[in-house]
């Protein structure tokens, strides 16, 4: 303990012997850390926004289906509505919201155009908490009950079909007996979505109306579940799968949408690579500073060795000096990054490139998010790599022969 007291004191005072050099290095580390964290926060914000947007479009965090539904989204691959253990779990505090849906392929026709779409029968009350549609109405109204006779379509689809609110369109699909069913619906609302494909490809009717129309009884095709967040879903997914039973397929969003699931993993890896790359640039400055500091103090190092300081303590002293320098830089860099992100909490307007952002499912506003994990990873990586980088000059310092070092002026 006493040895660390003298090592710390010497390292701290030596750090300030060349104030200008130390301040330049601290500035470089601070700016590097700031850049590391701020860019990570921007990327994290963008990817999270994309994932949230995607999850909000429909999938939720976890979905339950008939085991064959994903391969063949046919009307016959329906399941019973939640009941028993599954219903109890869905109504517990572990689940934030859930919705069951009828979901089948269909053809929509106006008096001018026809398009293939996905028909969704929804419970408007459940759906409000799970997906985007209730909050994305740009004209008319949202569905008002399970048996609402109206239909809500996307603005873009309305343009394509050359139709509008109040007009009737015909939905055609198949019932479980493979008989064609069709019915006219009056458009009661238009919704807007970040993705054009969503605006053009989804139409919503009441779930009761859909079950009657498709002769499904009370059966549904999809149960969508929202947990507390889109990360760390393993435990909830396991619980839902156990409650749903082995005859149903239960999958988290990142398996349902492998693109975004992979994107999230790639993002985690990318953050680490980004941090390491910035640190490598910094490390040249750090090593140079330490080499100069050691080179200037060869005589003193010889003196300390002569007085009985063990070589490993000399090594530790140089490493501690490096760690102190990094800690100061990290402190300032973290503060700068936190301040920058806090000041930008209202978002950064990137509407100049909005079309490109929307293609990826992100909005025209970018909300930087400084994740605790990223903060921890950046600081840990910098300290660990800093120690590794300082080992070379530290090792050199510890290998001096006292008599040779003492002869250096």
């Amino acid at each position, binding site marked *: 303990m006493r040895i660390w007291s*003298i090592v710390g004191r010497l390292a701290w005072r030596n750090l300030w*012997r060349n104030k200008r050099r130390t301040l330049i290095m601290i500035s470089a580390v601070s700016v590097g850390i700031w850049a590391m964290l701020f860019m990570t926060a921007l990327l994290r914000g963008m990817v999270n926004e994309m994932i949230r947007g995607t999850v909000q479009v429909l999938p939720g965090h976890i979905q339950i289906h008939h085991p064959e539904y994903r391969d063949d989204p046919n009307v016959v691959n329906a399941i019973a509505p939640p009941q028993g253990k599954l219903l109890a779990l869905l109504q517990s505090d572990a689940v934030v919201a859930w919705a069951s849906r009828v979901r089948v392929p269909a053809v929509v026709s106006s008096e001018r155009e026809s398009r293939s779409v996905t028909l969704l029968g929804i419970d408007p009350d459940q759906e409000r908490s799970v997906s985007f549609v209730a909050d994305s109405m740009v004209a008319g109204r949202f569905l008002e009950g399970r048996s609402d006779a109206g239909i809500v379509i996307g603005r873009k689809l309305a343009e394509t079909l050359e139709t509008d609110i109040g007009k009737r369109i015909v939905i055609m699909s198949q019932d479980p007996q493979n008989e064609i069913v069709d019915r006219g619906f009056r458009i009661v609302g238009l919704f807007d979505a970040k993705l054009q494909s969503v605006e053009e490809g989804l139409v919503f009717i009441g779930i009761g109306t859909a079950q009657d129309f498709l002769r499904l009884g009370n059966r549904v095709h999809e149960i969508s579940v929202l947990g507390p967040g889109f990360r760390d879903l393993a435990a909830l997914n396991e619980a839902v799968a156990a409650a749903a039973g082995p005859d149903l397929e239960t999958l988290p969003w990142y398996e349902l949408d492998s693109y975004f699931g992979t994107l999230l993993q790639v993002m985690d890896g990318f953050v680490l690579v980004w941090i390491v790359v910035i640190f490598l640039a910094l490390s040249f400055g750090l090593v140079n500073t330490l080499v100069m500091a050691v080179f200037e103090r060869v005589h003193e190092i010889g003196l300390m060795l*002569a007085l009985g300081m063990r070589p490993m303590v000399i090594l530790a002293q140089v490493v501690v000096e490096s760690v102190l320098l990094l800690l100061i830089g990290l402190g300032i860099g973290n503060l700068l990054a936190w301040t920058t992100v806090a000041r930008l909490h209202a978002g950064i307007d990137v509407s100049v490139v909005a079309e490109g952002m929307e293609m990826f499912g992100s909005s025209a506003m970018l909300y930087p998010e400084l994740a605790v994990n990223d903060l921890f990873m950046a600081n840990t990586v910098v300290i660990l790599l800093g120690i590794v980088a300082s080992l070379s000059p530290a090792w050199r310092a510890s290998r001096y022969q006292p008599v040779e070092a003492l002869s250096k002026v």
Partner: protein
Amino acid sequence: MSAVRCIGVSRIFRQGEHEVRGLDNVSLEIEKGEFVCLVAPSGGGKTTLLNAIGGLDRPDSGEIWVAGTRIDTLGKSALAEMRLNHIGFVFQAYNLIPVLTARENVEFVMQLQGVSADERQHRADAILAEVGLKGLEDRRPAKMSGGQQQRVAVARAIVSEPAMVLADEPTANLDSHAAEQLMELFVALNKKHDTTFIIATHDPRVMSYAGRIVRLLDGRIVEDVRQEAA
């Protein structure tokens, strides 16, 4: 048991293609409590012998024993440990650590030895007062004169009461009064604690305090005499 025993010690320095014999087959035995001066002209080998005895340099051949331990075969850490616990060094240049105050410089060795903070400060303040530096404890070396710095270095060398003090030209940068005070301090320590002193010098005033004079020339011992100290 001898304090120091050198057997056939040689040290060769290579300067390009030339070889210079810093020590040439030196054998020497110094008993505990002796006050010895190594006397030689510049380049005669006194500092080389002092460095070899102190474990700061390794001989090319021969054996060096300090307090019953053969040190020329010890590893770096073991040598550091031996220097820390058995030897006090006083160098010609003051050799203080510039970022530490006078007190902290004196405490340095004790801190490496693991002496408690209270004990360190008490002993450092006492020894600094003894070498005439009371009131200057918190000054850094840059704010002290050469003589004051040398006294701090002496205080550092003797504060932990080592069995042996090795001093290389300790009075070279001191005026005659300060040199006399320093030598009297050495003699007092020698008598009080039976500390072995080995001093490399060519200062006749220093030699007069020694009980034994070992003269070297071109790395060889040419004379080894005992005398009545002043």
